[in-house]
């Protein structure tokens, strides 16, 4: 079975300084993998490199095969097509992930239209409008007809993240990259969005690369986890194993910190 995403010996440098060194990971279709580590450990960079969108001045070496195509060193125009059909991303801060001057319905419609054109399907205004409504219902946005005409600043944080998820779904990707998708949300909304993501990934049979520093959140969303520290992969394995019997001292620290936090909250209640 060919991997959807296969990264081998990925090293990302900025001005000669390695930010990520020799990271390897692979994702089979439909597999859900978590990437955890503290801020600055290179989680997001690894994800950006996977879709060929590293910030200017950073160079990647090694090999990244996305749906069988080499991303490292590829020209932008060669991977643009790949991006639209294979991958979609959800970001941490839904307010900056949505165009502030575009109505939500139009933003979702734009992605749908692009996908339809790429598939060579006919694009009709009514058809797109129906698909937008269906997607908005799919991510449980209330009153889709009204919210489709709303601007991002007129929505709540949870609604914005749902809209962002709807846009990601509109690509019908085989790989969904979620970069700390619940960090900017309050705890209740976090749980709802997480539940929604989980359900959608399962129903659409998408692969999921879930990036987070929040262990419980990752634990509930993925099957397998990789731990990054200062740009290096320190541990990986099935979620129960890594969290249950962490081998690397860093992972042990992370897990212990999360437990201590839980205990503190338990004591406070």
């Amino acid at each position, binding site marked *: 079975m060919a991997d959807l995403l296969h990264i081998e010996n990925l090293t990302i440098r900025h001005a000669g300084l390695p930010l990520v060194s020799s990271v390897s990971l692979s994702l089979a279709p439909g597999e859900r993998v978590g990437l955890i580590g503290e801020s600055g450990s290179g989680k997001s960079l690894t994800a950006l490199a996977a879709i060929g969108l590293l910030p200017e*001045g950073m160079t990647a070496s090694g090999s990244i095969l996305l749906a069988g195509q080499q991303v490292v060193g590829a020209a932008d125009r060669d991977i643009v097509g790949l991006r*639209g059909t294979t991958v979609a991303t959800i970001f941490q801060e839904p307010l900056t992930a949505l165009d502030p001057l575009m109505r939500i319905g139009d933003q979702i419609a734009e992605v749908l239209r692009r996908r339809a054109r790429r598939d060579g399907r006919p694009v009709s205004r009514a058809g797109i409008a129906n698909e937008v409504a269906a997607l908005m219902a799919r991510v*449980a946005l209330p009153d889709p007809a*009204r919210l489709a005409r709303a601007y991002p600043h007129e929505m709540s944080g949870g609604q914005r993240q749902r809209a962002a998820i709807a846009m990601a779904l509109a690509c019908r990707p085989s790989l969904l990259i979620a970069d700390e998708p619940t960090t900017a949300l309050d705890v209740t909304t976090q749980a709802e969005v997480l539940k929604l993501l989980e359900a959608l990934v399962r129903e659409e049979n998408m692969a999921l690369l879930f990036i987070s520093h929040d262990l419980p959140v990752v634990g509930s969303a993925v099957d397998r986890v990789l731990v990054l520290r200062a740009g290096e992969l320190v541990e990986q394995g099935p979620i129960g194993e890594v969290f249950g019997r962490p081998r690397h001292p860093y992972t042990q620290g992370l897990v212990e910190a999360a437990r201590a936090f839980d205990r503190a909250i338990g004591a406070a209640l």
Partner: protein
Amino acid sequence: MTDVTPALTPPSSLRLTPAFIIGATLVSLHVVIGVSTLFWTPYDPTAMTGGRLAAPSLAHWAGTDRLGRDLFTEIMVGARIALAVGVGAVAIAAAIGVTIGLLAAFASRTVDDVLAATLDILIAFPTLLLAMLIVAASDGASLGTAILAIGIAASSIVARLTRILARRVLAMDYITAARVSGTGWLGIVRIHVLPNIWPTLVVNLALQFGLAVIAEASLSYLGLGAPPPNASWGRLLQEAQATVYTAPFGAIAPGIALVSLVIGLNLFADGLRDVADPTRRRR
């Protein structure tokens, strides 16, 4: 459901400030007068219609100039010239400036540095000097050279602003999201960058319009704008200069016309921001 939707405001809740209304009124007044001179003027703008340097009267609302031409007619024609130069110069500035600004914003670091340095040099270059160079390089002063000179001078400012605004937009997550979903550069410019920089850009363009009107008056005052008998306000001011003690109204009248249009444009520019930016509509 824990999500709460804030009430959506209907687009009719546009807030029109008094400043915006005054500005829009002044500007439309000039536009109406300027356009109407294409079809009708009280007198023939080049005909001698009364005594020389006559004081304002019912027959000549702004008096007459040193050749006995009706000054009010000339000021009306001057409005048309001022607006034509403003529209032409702003169109040139927008076309060149936005294009270069976007190129710089999308370009690699080195290309961007070169473009930014070039723009800084161009901005440091005085508009009048640039205009003289263009006039010297062409056959002579005309309305066209004035428009071109002012447009090119303003384009460097527009380009710099566009570059900064576009850079800020390009750093946003929704651009990355659009790129991930496979949008090409042109799509990103059309769908995301232009709409997002437009509110700020259009305000600046309206201000540039006012500056272009002043620049045109300065050029004609120096004899580098539209040649006589084009009744540019700058030329009227220059001609009235010699007789400003005996017939002050010859200088006051075109001065009022010039100042009222520029103030109107500036007030209009401020109000325009609220209209152009949907996130500022709800107050």
